[in-house]
């Protein structure tokens, strides 16, 4: 089986090349586009069955970079961790490709869309399968490129192109951390291959710039730098700002790249680097950032009116949960949430896409409403995804979120940072239930227009202009089979996937990180913690849903709700609707000063100081001196004779002065 491994990434690459280089008719184009990912999925399943006996499947395709000790082949490795990921990537990816056939059917960039989507699959699979952190970085940057290209897919609108650019550059800030992390890893392990690094112990001390540096300190920095990289790719504070803007891309892209797969790459990377993070002090930082992100993004999601923005902030929030799971040291909990989230968030995005499609490009939820009666099948699958997201007991989201809460809760007794983080995560879980309920109620249950903003000012700042397709109020555009079939499959996975995968996945992934080290009385305490957290999960779910239902359903329009909305709620809503003004803060503290500074430095330092004063100034001085001396060359014999005599006398005087002690001139002897 190992000799087929290279086909998993290369098949979609072939699809990219064919669709990218040839102008094919639409039917052929979509067959080419979908064939690659589906074939990769089939091979992935075959490979996956092979590794069930804890036998990693490896293949070295060719030698990529080799300089001295540094030797990086293009090597692929399937172990349980990457095995789970390739199934998710190719499985969910294939469904989204099929969905896109119908969704993008009328777009003039149809082939280009499939080409980019295929290139994304290739990059993502290289990221997952790469056997060294450098090869992972190839995929890491590749998915970033595809994200950039697909966010700006409708490039004729500058807004979309800008969103793509923002995503790329924000990710580059993360990559800065990633690269430094790789350099630290090399200093520690003298290797970049995952399996090799995992097999080595962190040395006591390391030589760096001629100084002895403690290995543990360097490991801390390596972990922190890599986490910065993860913050970029997986949208954590302070680098999350690109993900909501990324919704400018077509909805299948939001589902595949910005929800199910690419944005979880940071979580996957840290799970891959588990040997570095086990027991690391970085994890306290990670859990704090993760919990803050989960909470803050959950809050913002409450006040968004663009259906995709709600889901985008929800994704940021859920990614926070995944990082919290990784930070707890029970790495499987983070990965478990990656998988379940891929199911239900892909479902929600694709469902949202179907809604947008049905309404001819409308994305503002305030202009929706009552769709449940008109599109019952779509409403049913969307609600299935929403319930899984909100954490209805026994749905996929419930299991994975609960596992994270348990893990963080248990860690709270060991490390101080985990206590507050746990509280924030519990609150975020409640918020999740609340905003999900709000979304479903407004979109599907209410009468149309029930949530129209009362005054124009209230909607200022959230111009959710329609971006997709043409905008018009004709007939509802009912989703066809190619759209509903993937949704149905994902709905089943969202409802039952958690229950089915909970134990098996934990067992299956164990060889990746080995047995976690737990205290002796662990089992009993674990049961207590588990019971407590299940209870807490159920309570926050109930509270969140009830609150959402009361405010946006049952009591909507009642006086006390109105009073709240006009009074204390208004300021809070304003702050949330404007996303705490983080974009504006970045604009005025970083971006604008950088631009201004560059221009000022260019003028003052480059033009004036270096070029005019130093470089041309030197030229002018030479020119001026030469010009002045030129005046002495008059061409008159008289002047020449006089200056000759003066010169000769001066020379004689100089020689005489030199030998004044002896008064014996050297040439007289």
């Amino acid at each position: 089986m190992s000799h087929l491994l290279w086909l998993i990434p290369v098949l979609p690459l072939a699809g990219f090349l064919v669709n990218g280089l040839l102008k094919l008719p639409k039917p052929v184009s979509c067959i080419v586009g979908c064939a690659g990912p589906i074939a990769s999925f089939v091979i992935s399943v075959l490979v996956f069955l092979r590794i069930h006996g804890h036998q990693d499947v490896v293949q070295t395709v060719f030698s990529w970079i080799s300089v001295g000790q540094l030797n990086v082949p293009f090597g692929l490795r399937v172990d349980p961790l990457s095995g789970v990921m390739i199934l998710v990537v190719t499985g969910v990816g294939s469904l989204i490709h099929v969905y896109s056939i119908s969704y993008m059917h009328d777009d003039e960039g149809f082939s280009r869309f499939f080409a980019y989507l295929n290139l994304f699959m290739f990059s993502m699979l290289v990221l997952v399968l790469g056997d060294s952190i450098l090869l992972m970085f190839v995929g890491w940057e590749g998915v970033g490129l595809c994200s950039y290209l697909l966010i700006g897919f409708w490039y004729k609108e500058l807004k979309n192109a800008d969103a793509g650019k923002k995503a790329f550059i924000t990710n580059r800030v993360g990559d800065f951390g990633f690269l430094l992390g790789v350099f630290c890893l090399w200093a520690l392990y003298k290797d970049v291959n995952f399996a090799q690094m995992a097999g080595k112990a962190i040395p006591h001390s390391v030589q760096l710039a001629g100084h002895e540096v403690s290995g543990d300190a360097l490991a801390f920095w390596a972990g922190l730098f890599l986490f910065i990289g993860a913050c970029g790719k997986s949208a954590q504070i302070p680098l999350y700002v690109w993900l909501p803007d990324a919704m400018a891309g077509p909805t299948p892209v939001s589902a595949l790249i910005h929800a199910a797969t690419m944005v979880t790459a940071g979580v996957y990377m840290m799970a891959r680097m588990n040997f570095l993070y086990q027991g690391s002090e970085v994890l306290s930082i990670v859990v704090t950032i993760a919990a803050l992100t989960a909470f803050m993004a959950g809050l913002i999601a409450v006040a968004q009116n663009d259906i995709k923005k709600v889901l985008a902030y929800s994704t940021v929030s859920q990614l926070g949960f995944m990082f919290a799971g990784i930070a707890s040291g029970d790495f499987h909990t983070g990965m478990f949430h990656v998988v379940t989230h891929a199911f239900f968030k892909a479902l929600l995005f694709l469902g949202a896409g179907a809604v947008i499609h049905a309404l001819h490009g409308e994305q503002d939820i305030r202009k929706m409403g009552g769709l449940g009666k008109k599109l019952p099948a779509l409403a049913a699958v969307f609600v299935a995804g929403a319930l899984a997201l909100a954490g209805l007991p026994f749905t996929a989201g419930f299991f994975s979120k609960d596992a994270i809460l348990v893990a963080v809760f248990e860690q709270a007794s060991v490390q101080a940072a985990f206590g507050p983080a746990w509280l924030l995560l519990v609150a975020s879980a409640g918020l999740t239930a609340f905003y999900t309920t709000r979304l479903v109620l407004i979109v599907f249950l209410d009468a149309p227009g029930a949530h129209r903003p009362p005054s124009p000012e209230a909607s200022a700042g959230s111009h959710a202009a329609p971006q997709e397709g043409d905008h018009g109020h004709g007939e509802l555009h009912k989703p066809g089979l190619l759209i509903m079939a993937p949704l149905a499959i994902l709905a089943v996975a969202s409802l039952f996937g958690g229950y089915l995968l909970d134990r098996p996945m934990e067992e299956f992934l164990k060889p990746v990180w080995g047995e976690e080290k737990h205290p002796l009385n662990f089992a009993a305490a674990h049961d207590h913690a588990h019971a407590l957290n299940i209870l807490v999960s159920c309570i926050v779910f109930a509270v969140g849903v009830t609150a959402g239902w009361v405010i946006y359903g049952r009591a909507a329009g009642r006086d006390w709700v109105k009073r709240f909305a006009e009074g204390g709620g208004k300021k809070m809503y304003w702050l949330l609707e404007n996303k705490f003004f983080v974009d504006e803060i970045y604009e005025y503290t970083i971006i604008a000063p950088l631009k201004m500074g560059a221009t000022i430095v260019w003028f003052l330092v480059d033009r004036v100081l270096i070029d005019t004063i130093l470089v041309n100034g030197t030229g002018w001085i030479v020119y001026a001196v030469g010009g002045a001396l030129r005046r002495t060359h008059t061409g008159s014999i008289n002047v020449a004779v006089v200056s000759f005599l003066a010169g000769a006398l001066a020379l004689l005087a100089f020689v005489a002065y030199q030998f004044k002690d002896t008064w014996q001139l050297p040439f007289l002897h």
Partner: protein
Amino acid sequence: MAAPLLTLITFLPALAGLLLSPLKAEKGGIVRFAALFVTLAVLGLAGAVWFLFDPKGDPIQFREDHLWIRSLYLTPTKGITYSVGVDGISLAMMVLTAFLMPLAIRASWHQPKGFLITLLFLETGMMGAFVALDLFLFYVFWEAMLIPMYLLIGIWGGPRRIYASVKFILYTIVGSVLMLAAILYAATQAGTFDVVTLQGQLPRLLAGSPDTQYWLFLAFAVSFAIKVPLFPFHTWLPDAHVEAPTAGSVILAGVLLKMGTYGFLRFAIPFFPDAAQHFTPLIVALSTIGIIYGSLMAMAQSDIKKLVAYSSVAHLGFCMLGIFSGTLQGAQGGVLQMVNHGLSTGALFLLVGVIYEKTHRRGVDDFGGMAKVMPVYATLFMIVTLSSIGLPGLNGFVGEFLVLFGSFPNHPTATAFASLGVVLGAVYMLKLYRDVFFGPVTRPEREKIGDVEKGDLAYLLPIVALIILLGVLPNLVLSRTERSVSAVVKNLQPDRVSH
């Protein structure tokens, strides 16, 4: 060695130039095809040397030695010699030059006879400088190559061509004169102009007099630093690039700048290793400043060519950082980055040339929404942009990564700052791309300018293909340069054995 391959490679273009000169100006067609044919023949020969070069064989291969100017003072060669030969580094530079020349000729298809002949003479100068193994011979080629470039900018350049060409030649000559003095001193001390002998003898001769080493090193280093250009010796570059015709910019960025880094690798470091170590912190600092400063300056530009020129300052900063990193990985990355920069920046200038020929504009504001009008052009520009910002899978990444990777162990702080260049590079290049290609078409008259023509693809596709190839198989270059580079790097390591 049977055929004097390197001599052929060096002098074929000049010979062709001489033979073509008497032709009447109306015979432009013949000159064009002859020039293309000759440069392609040179590429073929250089390719042959590339494949015949044995990475595990002698350090210097294809060597030719002939006595040129007799002088009894000069032992052991009895005079100044015509000696040429290639090691891995000069091989890479030679092939890069040979590769870029036909493209430059093809991009100058509309130019008059004199222009093409000047390009041919330029090729001889560059090739000679890369293969020369006699310091005197090197200096002759080094100076000879300035004249054609001076003419290219001064005669066929833009409106401020005279200012730019005079600035270019004066600035370079200031450095050259310093180097000449140092060459004469060093050669009389060692009694030879032979580069290999000098590399062996000078460190030993000067081991006891560090001050002499420092001054000689500085004389060489200033000359090369101007050429690189290392911050703050860079201000001639934007002027020269903006005024130079397309082919001039391509060769200037693609090859001439590498003369500077090549000079450090071939002469300054091996001749004066103690001084090189002494000044390493300074050069590392200037390189790092150059990376960040060049990127910031690129951000502030509204002229596409100027932006690319400042990006060269940043890219060459990476090369210099790698060369002075003191590790094999860093120096290999620096050499690879020399090749990469030649390809990606050469390609950028070729691409800018395409729209400049169509519109006679090269301001960022003069364009907008071009992706819709010129989809193929936009795609090629995207690939080159990505190469320039170091996207893995394309050539730029490997060089940039190796440089940073290799400099981290010895200069972690500088590396951290230099890594910011990776972020800033994306900022200015993607901003450029956005402004030129995305959004609605800003000027109606640009609607009809049409996509790249087949004639343009003839020189754009090969370079893009090589950009992709070297991203996937960088070992093609790295394996050939490793031995020569590791010999240079040994000079910079603290435990260097003094003879």
